[in-house]
C-alpha cells in the first residue's frame, strides 16, 4: 500500500526553506525573516511543543493567542510543524470569551505574544497548560537547549489542521474544525487559478484568528512568496503600505474599499503592482469593486464567498466588463463553486430547489468542515446528510444564507435566514449580543440590531434595553468584559418597553424603523 500523503501545512514551507533559504517569508514592521530563519524558529517551537507538552502528534491542539506579531506567525507555523491543529485566538477578545474558548479547545499548549499573555493572565488560564511566553523567540529564552524538530511531522488528510472559533447564538463561541485535506483542496484551487511564485508579495490584512488569514498566510507560503503584515495603524487606509511594499496580492474584506475611498486613497492607477485582488467575508458592492479596479488597473478583482465551515471560501465571481450583479442589491454575485465543491439551494425541509427559487444556500464537497468541536448535536443539525436528485446522498453544510441560482448557473446572495450579521467580515449573532445584554442588565428585555446596513453589510450594532436600572455607560463597560470589540454596540437606547411581534418576540423590524425615523428627523 502506498504511504499516505503528508498533508502537514508546514511541509511546503520546509521545502522552500531548503530550496531558497534566503527568500523573504515574513515582513513584519521593520523586520524581514527569510524562509530559513522562520523555518528554524518553527522547528524550535515544534521541539518545545514535543518536549514540554507532548504536542507533537495528531489530535492535539495548540492555541495561539497573538496578533500581528512574530509569535502569531511563527507560533502557527511551529504548531503545524509539530503536527498539531492550531487554534488562533484574538488577544483583543475579553478574558471571559478567551476562557470559554480555551475550555472548549482544551489545548495541549499555548503560544502567546505580549498582548496575549496579558489577556491569558486576566482569564486565569495560566498554569493549566504549558505556555510559551512572549519574547521566547529571541535569544536567551526557554527555547535555548531545546532540540529542534528537524522537519514537519506527517499529517494524514483526515486530521484537523486548525480550529477557528466564531460567534454562537447562545453566547458560547463555536469551534469549526477544518481537516488537513480540506485546506489542501482550498490551497490547490488557489494555486491553480492564480499563477503564483516566490516573487509574489502578499498582504496579511486579517487577524490570524479570522479564517481569511488561512488564505494569505498559507497560499503565500505554499508559493514561496513573502507575507507582508499590515500594521494595525494602517488597517483603515493601507494605500501607502500597498505602494511601499509593492504588493502583488491583496486580500481583505470589502469594507476596506469603502474606508479607503472615504480617505481619498483610491486614485486612478494608485496600485500598479497589484495583480490579484481577493475580496471575501461580506458582500462586495459593485461601486466598491469598480473603484478598486480603477485604483488597481493591472489586477483581477475576485469576489469569493464562503463561511468558515467551508474552509475560507468555495465560490467565486470575477469582476467583468460589463459587470454581472445581483438584481436589486447592486452587489457582485457570489458566482460559481470551485471545482470539486457544490452549491445548492434547499427549502426548510432540506429539499433541493431548482434555479430561480430562493432558499437556504447549502454547500458540499471536500472543503466542508468536520464539524463543531465538542458539539455533536449542533454539528448534526448544521451538517445533515441530504439526498440530491442528481448527485445522490452526501453531507451538506446549511449556511443560513439566503440565495438563489440564476438560469446561467450563477449564485446570488440575498441575505440571512436568521439574525447573523457581518461587521468587517466578522460573524456576529445578534442573539448572542441579546443574551449578554440581558445578563449584564439583569432584565428580560434587550435586543440588538445591525445599523446602519448598506448592501447587506452592517456598519455597527445598536442595542435596545427596557427596564434596566443601569445607565448606558455602565451597560457598555460591563459588555466590554464579554463581547469582542467588533461586536460591541455603538449606542445603547433605553425604552420603557420593547415592541413585540404578534408571536410575542422582540420586533427587530420595529426597532430598525425607530432608527430610520430618527435619522430622517436629524436630516430634515
Amino acid at each position, binding site marked *: 500500500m502506498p504511504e499516505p500523503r503528508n498533508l502537514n501545512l508546514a511541509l511546503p514551507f520546509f521545502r522552500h526553506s531548503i530550496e531558497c533559504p534566503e527568500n523573504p517569508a515574513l515582513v513584519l514592521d521593520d523586520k524581514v525573516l527569510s524562509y530559513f530563519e522562520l523555518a528554524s524558529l518553527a522547528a524550535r517551537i515544534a521541539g518545545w511543543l514535543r518536549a514540554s507538552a507532548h504536542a507533537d502528534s495528531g489530535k492535539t491542539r495548540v492555541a495561539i493567542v497573538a496578533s500581528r506579531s512574530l509569535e502569531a506567525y511563527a507560533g502557527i507555523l511551529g504548531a503545524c510543524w509539530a503536527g498539531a491543529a492550531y487554534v488562533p485566538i484574538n488577544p483583543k477578545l475579553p478574558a471571559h470569551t478567551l476562557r470559554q474558548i480555551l475550555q472548549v479547545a482544551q489545548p495541549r499548549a499555548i503560544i502567546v505574544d505580549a498582548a496575549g499573555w496579558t489577556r491569558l493572565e486576566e482569564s486565569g488560564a495560566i498554569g493549566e497548560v504549558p505556555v510559551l511566553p512572549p519574547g521566547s523567540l529571541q535569544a536567551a529564552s526557554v527555547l535555548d537547549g531545546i532540540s529542534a524538530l528537524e522537519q514537519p511531522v506527517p499529517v494524514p488528510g483526515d486530521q484537523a489542521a486548525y480550529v477557528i472559533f466564531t460567534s454562537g447564538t447562545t453566547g458560547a463561541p463555536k469551534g469549526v474544525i477544518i481537516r488537513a485535506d480540506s485546506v489542501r483542496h482550498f490551497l490547490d484551487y488557489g494555486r491553480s487559478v492564480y499563477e503564483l511564485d516566490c516573487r509574489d508579495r502578499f498582504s496579511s490584512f486579517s487577524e490570524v484568528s479570522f479564517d481569511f488569514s488561512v488564505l494569505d498566510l498559507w497560499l503565500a507560503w505554499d508559493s514561496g512568496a513573502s507575507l507582508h503584515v499590515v500594521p494595525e495603524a*494602517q488597517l483603515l*487606509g493601507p*494605500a501607502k503600505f500597498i505602494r511601499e511594499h509593492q504588493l502583488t496580492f491583496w486580500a481583505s474584506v470589502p469594507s476596506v474599499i469603502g*474606508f479607503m475611498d*472615504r480617505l481619498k486613497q483610491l486614485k486612478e492607477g494608485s496600485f500598479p503592482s497589484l495583480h490579484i485582488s481577493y475580496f471575501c467575508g461580506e458582500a462586495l458592492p459593485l461601486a466598491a469593486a469598480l473603484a478598486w479596479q480603477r485604483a488597481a488597473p493591472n489586477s483581477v478583482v475576485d469576489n469569493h464567498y464562503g463561511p468558515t465551515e467551508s474552509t475560507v471560501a468555495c465560490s467565486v465571481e470575477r469582476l467583468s466588463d460589463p459587470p454581472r450583479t445581483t438584481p436589486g442589491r447592486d452587489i457582485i454575485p457570489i458566482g460559481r463553486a470551485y471545482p470539486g465543491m457544490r452549491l445548492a439551494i434547499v427549502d426548510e425541509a432540506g429539499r433541493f430547489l431548482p434555479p430561480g427559487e430562493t432558499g437556504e444556500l447549502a454547500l458540499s464537497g471536500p472543503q466542508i468542515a468536520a464539524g463543531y468541536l465538542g458539539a455533536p448535536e449542533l454539528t448534526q443539525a448544521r451538517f445533515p446528510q441530504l439526498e440530491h436528485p442528481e448527485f445522490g446522498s452526501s453531507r451538506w453544510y446549511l449556511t443560513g444564507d439566503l440565495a438563489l441560482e440564476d438560469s446561467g448557473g450563477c449564485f446570488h446572495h440575498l441575505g440571512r435566514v436568521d439574525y447573523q450579521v457581518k461587521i468587517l467580515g466578522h460573524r456576529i449573532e445578534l442573539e448572542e449580543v441579546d443574551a449578554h445584554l440581558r445578563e449584564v442588565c439583569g432584565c428580560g428585555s434587550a435586543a440588538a440590531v445591525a445599523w446602519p446596513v448598506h448592501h447587506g453589510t452592517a456598519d455597527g450594532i445598536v442595542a435596545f434595553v427596557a427596564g434596566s436600572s443601569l445607565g448606558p455607560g455602565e451597560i457598555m463597560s460591563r459588555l466590554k468584559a464579554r463581547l469582542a470589540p467588533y461586536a*460591541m454596540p455603538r*449606542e445603547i437606547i433605553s425604552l420603557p418597553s420593547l415592541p413585540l411581534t404578534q408571536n410575542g418576540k422582540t420586533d427587530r423590524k420595529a426597532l430598525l424603523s425607530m432608527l430610520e425615523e430618527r435619522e430622517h428627523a436629524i436630516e430634515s
Partner: protein
Amino acid sequence: MEAREKIRVRIQEILSRRGDDQPFGDQDSLIFSGRIDSLNVLEIVGFLEEEFHLDISEVDFDQTQFDSLESIAALV
C-alpha cells in the same frame, strides 16, 4: 473657539454617544485603547474636512494621527 477646543467638544460627543463619560486628556489614546472605533475615525475626518477644510487626500493617513486629541489638532 480654538480648533483644539472644537475638536475636544466633538470627541466628547462621540464618547458620550458610546456611553463613555470618562474624562480624556489631550494625549490619551482613543483608537488603540478601544474608546472609539473606525467609523468614529471617519466621522472625525468628515468633521475636520468640513470645519477646517482639511484635505484628507494630502494626509499620509495613519491611525496614530487620530489616536489623541493632540495628534488630531496637529492635522489642522
